C-alpha cells in the first residue's frame, strides 16, 4: 500500500509542530534537545517521502536523510556534552534558570 504523499507531509508537519511546541515549552534542556530531534526527523521523513515521489534521482533524498540522521546524532552528542558541562557548573538543566546573560 502506498501512502499518499499529502498524508506523509501532514504527518511530518505534525511531527515538526510537536517538535517546535516542545522546543518552546519544555523546561528541561534535554527535553528541548529531544524536541529538536523531532524536528530534524520531520525533515528526514519529508526527504524520504519526496525521494519516493517527486525526486528525479531517488537516491539523493535517501542519502540526504542518512546525513540528517548523522547530523542529528552529532547535535545530540554535542548538545548533551554541553548540557553536562552546564550541569557541572550550574547544577541545573532547566532552560529558564539559565539566564545569567541577558538584556
Amino acid at each position, binding site marked *: 500500500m502506498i501512502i499518499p504523499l499529502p498524508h506523509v507531509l501532514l504527518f511530518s508537519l505534525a511531527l515538526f509542530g510537536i517538535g517546535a511546541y516542545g522546543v518552546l515549552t519544555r523546561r528541561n534542556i534535554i527535553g528541548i534537545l529531544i524536541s529538536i530531534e523531532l524536528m530534524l526527523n520531520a525533515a528526514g521523513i519529508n526527504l524520504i517521502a519526496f525521494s519516493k515521489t*517527486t525526486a528525479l534521482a531517488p537516491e539523493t533524498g535517501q542519502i540526504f536523510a542518512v546525513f540528517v540522521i548523522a547530523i542529528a546524532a552529532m547535535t545530540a552528542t554535542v548538545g548533551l556534552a554541553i548540557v553536562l558541562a552546564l550541569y557541572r557548573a*550550574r547544577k541545573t538543566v532547566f532552560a529558564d534558570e539559565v539566564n545569567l546573560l541577558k538584556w
Partner: protein
Amino acid sequence: MGPVESLRHFIPELVLLGGAFTAFFLDFLLKNKRLVGYFALLTIVAAACLLKAPPKESLDLFYGFFHLDGFANLFRVLALIAVAATILIAFGFSPLRDRYEGEFYGLFLFMAFALITVAAANNLLMIFLSVEFVSILSYLLAGFLKNDLKAKESAVKYLLFGSVCSAVMLYGMSLLFGAAGSIDLPAIARVVDSPAMKPLGMIGLLCFFVGLGFKISMAPFHMWAPDVYEGAPTPVTAFLTVAPKALGFAVLMRVLASVFGESYRDWRQVLMWLSILTMTLGNLTAISQTNIKRFLAYSSIAQAGYILMGLAVFPSPLGKDGVLIYLFAYLFTNLGAFAVVSSVGDRTGSDEIASYSGLSERAPVSAALMTVFLLSLTGIPPLAGFLAKYYVFAAAVEARFITLVVVAAVNSAVAAYYYFRVIRTMYLVPADQPALPKPPVSAAAVTWLMAAGVLGIGLFPGFFIKLILG
C-alpha cells in the same frame, strides 16, 4: 568533474583537514601546547599559499557538489584570514592557558576546513552539511572555557537556538527538494518560478531563509547573538562575529543569485524592512550596553543590517559588490576591535566599558588602534568602514531605496553616538588606574595587521576593490 580530478582543486581543504588531525595528534605529544597553535597557524598559511588564483570559468567539483569560482575563492580567503587572526588573538588570551589549549587550535583548523567548504557548497546537502559543521564547532568553541559560567550558558543558548534554526532550515530544504525533485540550486531555481510548485517552494525557501538569518544574526533571528557573544571566550567571539556571518551571507548570496529570477523583486521589500529592523534594533539596544563584548555584539547586529542593504537591492551588481566589500572591511575592523578587547580584557581582567577609562594614557597604542577600529565601524573616512558603507549606500541610492538610505543614515548617526561612548571613555575620562603592561607580541601583531587592513582598504580602495572584486 569526478572525484579524482577534483582533488587537484581541493588541496587547501585537504591540507586543513590533515592539519586538523595532526594537530590533535600533536596535542597528545607536546607539553607546550603553544606549539600546536604555531602548527595550526602554519597549516593555515600553507593552505592560503596553496589557494590558486580563481579559475576563469567556474569549476564543478565532485559532480557538482562544490562549485569553485572567484566568489568561493574570495570567501576561502576571508575564512582563512579570520581563522588565522583568531588564533593569533587566542595566543594572547590567558584563560585558554590550560591543557585543552591544543584542542582549541585543532578545532579551529576543523573550523577553517568547514568554512572554506561552505563558500563552495553548491547544493542543499552540501550547504546543510557545511553550515551544520560550522555551527556545531561554534557551539563547542563558545563553551570552551571550563570554569566559566557565562561561557557554558552561552554555549547552551547557542546550541539550542542554532539547532532549532538548523532544523527549520532542514525542513525547508526537504520541502524544496520535494518541490524541485533535486537538491541542485539551478533546478530549484526553475521550480520557484513555476506557478504549480510555488507555495511549497516558497515555504521551503522561507524556512531556508530562517537558518541563514540565524547565521547572519538578522532580526528577528538575532536574539541569541548578544548572549553568545558576551559569554564566549573573546577570541571565539571575535571569530563568531565575523566568519560564520560572512559565510551566511555567502550562502545567502549564492542562493539568491542562483535561485531567484524575476520573483526576486517581491523579496526586495522584505529584505529592505529586515535590513531596517536589524540595524535599528541593533543600534538602539547597543546604546545602553556596559559590557564591551555585548556592546560589540549589538553593533555587529547593526552592521548586519547595513550589509543587508546590499542584498535588498540584489540584482544590482553594486549591491553584490557592496556586500563583499562590506564583509572584508568588517572582517578587518571587527577582528581588530576584538583583538584589542581581548588583549585589554586580558590585562585588566574585565570586559566592562568602564575598565577602559583613561586607556589613552594607560595603553596609548591599544587605545589609538581601538579608536581606529571604532571609527571604521562608525564609517568615518578614510577607513575601511567608510568605503563599505559608501558602497551599500550607493547601491541603495542607485536602486532608489530612499527610505532605506535615510533610515540607514539616521542609524549611522545613532551608531556614532555609542561608538564614541567608548572613545570617550578611553580618551576623555581620566585614568584612575595604573598603566597596563605591554601586550604580547602576537596580540600586538594581529591588532596592527588588522589596523593595516582597515587603513589600507580606506586609503587605497582602488587596489583592494580590484583585489576583492577582480
